[in-house]
């Protein structure tokens, strides 16, 4: 964050423009590529401008949790790889990575994206676990939206591995897809001073005051939210930000 840069961002925004020529409500170009790593049961690469994410799905068979005997397990993990930015350091996940994983997790879990009951093999004994790992390859802002999109794309790409005699053969994939019921799309709206923008570059994100993330399903229902940043938001602003998020979610959904 730099005061000089922030002032300059605001000056441009006052004229409806961002440094890279976009309007406040414009995303950069989005691409989604499926099946990018053979070792995962499902995978996707998402690029939003210069931001690049790979998400991979691995599956396993586990005993269910005591309170969900007939449901499979879902797990989301995010790695802010030091390869992807000079700002990231090696070591156990920090706050930013944990928040990122949890926000993506809630979008998938709360929307009921996966029919977890259909992941049950034998009630109380064996269920499928679905583990999504998000890895940053190049980090240039808006990691949350890019990661959530990569995660849902990887789930769409995933196929069950062969399971026989209580053993998984990872070398052999079946053609059975995951029981996907919903496709939540996540949009984060950032507030810089009194202006709202989406899909910030790294430079814009570092100079933002607050953000609001919403996971949104096809009919516009919001199924998870997260407010971030050190500045409070008033109710009117929250409403405006969500309305922008809903509108953008439609656009992003078309990329899946």
């Amino acid at each position, binding site marked *: 964050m730099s005061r*000089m840069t922030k*002032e*300059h*961002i605001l000056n441009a925004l006052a004229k409806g423009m961002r*440094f890279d020529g976009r309007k406040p409500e414009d995303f950069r170009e989005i691409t989604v590529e499926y099946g990018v790593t053979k070792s995962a049961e499902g995978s996707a690469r998402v690029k939003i401008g210069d931001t690049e994410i790979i998400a991979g799905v691995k599956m396993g068979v586990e005993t269910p949790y005591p309170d969900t005997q007939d449901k499979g397990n879902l797990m989301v993990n995010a790695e802010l790889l030091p390869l992807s930015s000079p700002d990231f350091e090696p070591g156990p996940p920090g706050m930013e990575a944990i928040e990122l994983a949890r926000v993506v997790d809630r979008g998938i879990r709360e929307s009921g994206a996966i029919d977890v009951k259909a992941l049950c093999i034998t009630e109380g004994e064996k269920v499928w676990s679905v583990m999504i790992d998000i890895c940053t390859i190049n980090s240039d802002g808006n990691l949350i939206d890019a990661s959530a999109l990569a995660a849902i794309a990887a789930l769409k790409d995933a196929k069950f591995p062969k399971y026989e005699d209580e053993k998984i053969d990872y070398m052999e994939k079946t053609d059975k897809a995951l029981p996907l019921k919903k496709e939540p799309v996540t949009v984060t709206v950032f507030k810089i001073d009194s202006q709202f923008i989406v899909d910030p570059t790294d430079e814009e994100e570092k100079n933002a005051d607050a953000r609001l993330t919403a996971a949104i399903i096809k009919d516009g229902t919001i199924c998870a939210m997260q407010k971030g940043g050190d500045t409070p938001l008033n109710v009117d602003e929250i409403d405006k930000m969500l309305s922008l998020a809903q509108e953008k979610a439609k656009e992003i959904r078309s990329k899946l």
Partner: protein
Amino acid sequence: MTEEIKVNEKEVVVPGETLATGMGFLPSKGTYREGDNIIAARLGMVHVDRKVIKIIPLSGIYQPKAGDVIIAKIIDVLMSGWKLETNTAYPAMMSMKDATSEYIAKGADLRRYFDVDEYVVAKITNVTTQNLIDLTMRGPGLRKLRGGRVIKVNSNKVPRIIGKHGSMISMVKNATDCKIIVGQNGLVWVDGEPDKEKIAVDTIKKIEEESHVSGLTDLIKSHLEKVTGKKLEITEKGE
């Protein structure tokens, strides 16, 4: 013994590549001799000056040199000066007496002169063997930056961005009405109207990317004329 140059002038070579054989050739910057051969010791572009072979870097972080004018950012205020970030692995120091011709009273609040997070245009006065850098702000054009923003470019491309006697960068300034200062350390300050400033930044990136195209000045001239609709002239002054 045969003497032979194995590569062409301006060819891009990689570490370990044999550039010439024979004792008649002399290894200069970016090369080394191994037996009869002269070998590339880095990635870069070959330049042969009669019998002397050197490699011009195309990538890599900025190597500080005394006399260079750079853009630096204040990162700390010390007892009797400032610590600055230089876009290298090493911070720079600037003492009170080098910072301003004004008299600074003992115990004065130095942040009133230069505060943390502010950018300055400064000149390198000294670089030690340990890469410690001393800066001064006393000299023409050296000043604190107000407004605008700073972008990063490949410092090896700075000479192309500035152009012969500043011809390239003054053309960009004239076409876009932006204020631009190119630091030798690869930081470039730009300030203008948002749409014009975007043209200026895109053009600088274009020069950076196409720096080894011959006839670059003409290419940039026609590009700028096309996007701004302005008729431009190439002048060899400015900066």
